[in-house]
């Protein structure tokens, strides 16, 4: 199953991990994107996320479809948080289960790369002593 969700509240790694767990799977791979306290020597206070929600949900479902075309995975969860995300808290949790570990490990990397490059979500980095900046994914 695919679990795709955009939420305005704290993300729970445990809940999302449980969501994808399956008796037929021996592996779960997870990626958690968290707010970092610094960027190029500037102190980051928090991040602020906004999304084009219906299109973002579509794009996240498309990522799931693409993964299923490439790897044999059982369940996929992609959760993105919007609004203010304080330092150390999660903005994104991706979790995938697969019978064997190779699939979910490869798929989680693809998932995070593809979410970053295809899903209409934006983050503004709010600094302690400089003007906030809208970011651009480049990595």
């Amino acid at each position, binding site marked *: 199953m695919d679990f795709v969700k955009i939420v305005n509240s704290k993300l729970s790694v445990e809940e999302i991990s449980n969501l994808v767990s399956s008796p037929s799977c021996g592996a779960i791979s997870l990626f958690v*994107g968290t707010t970092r306290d610094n960027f190029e020597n500037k102190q980051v206070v928090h991040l602020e*996320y*906004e*999304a*084009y929600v*219906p*299109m*973002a949900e*579509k794009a996240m479902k498309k990522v799931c479809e693409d993964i299923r075309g490439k790897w044999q995975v059982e369940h996929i969860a992609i959760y*993105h948080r919007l609004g203010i995300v304080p330092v150390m808290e999660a*903005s*994104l949790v991706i979790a995938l289960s697969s019978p064997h570990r190779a699939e979910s490990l490869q798929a989680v990397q693809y998932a*995070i790369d593809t*979410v*970053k*490059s*295809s*899903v*209409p*979500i*934006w*983050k*503004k980095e709010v600094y302690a002593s400089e003007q906030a900046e*809208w*970011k*651009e*994914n480049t990595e």
Partner: protein
Amino acid sequence: MADISAVEIQVLFFAKARELCGKKESQLLIPSATSYDNLLDEIVQKFSLEPIRDNLILAINEEYATSESEVHLKEGDQVAVIPPLSGG
């Protein structure tokens, strides 16, 4: 004979684009058949998006549009102004 009437579309703004034009959405009267570049020009001019013009793409009804394509719009279509993505 092509029926190029004017249609009213909904325009959505996000992130930097939202901040520049000062609103989340607006209406725009536009020919129903046009080019991607014309549509982008119209939106950029009308909503003061010149500073980020070269860093925008448009999504039409929740699909990314490709530059240099023909665009056919109907009343109520949704065009979103998409600055560089930075989710994750």
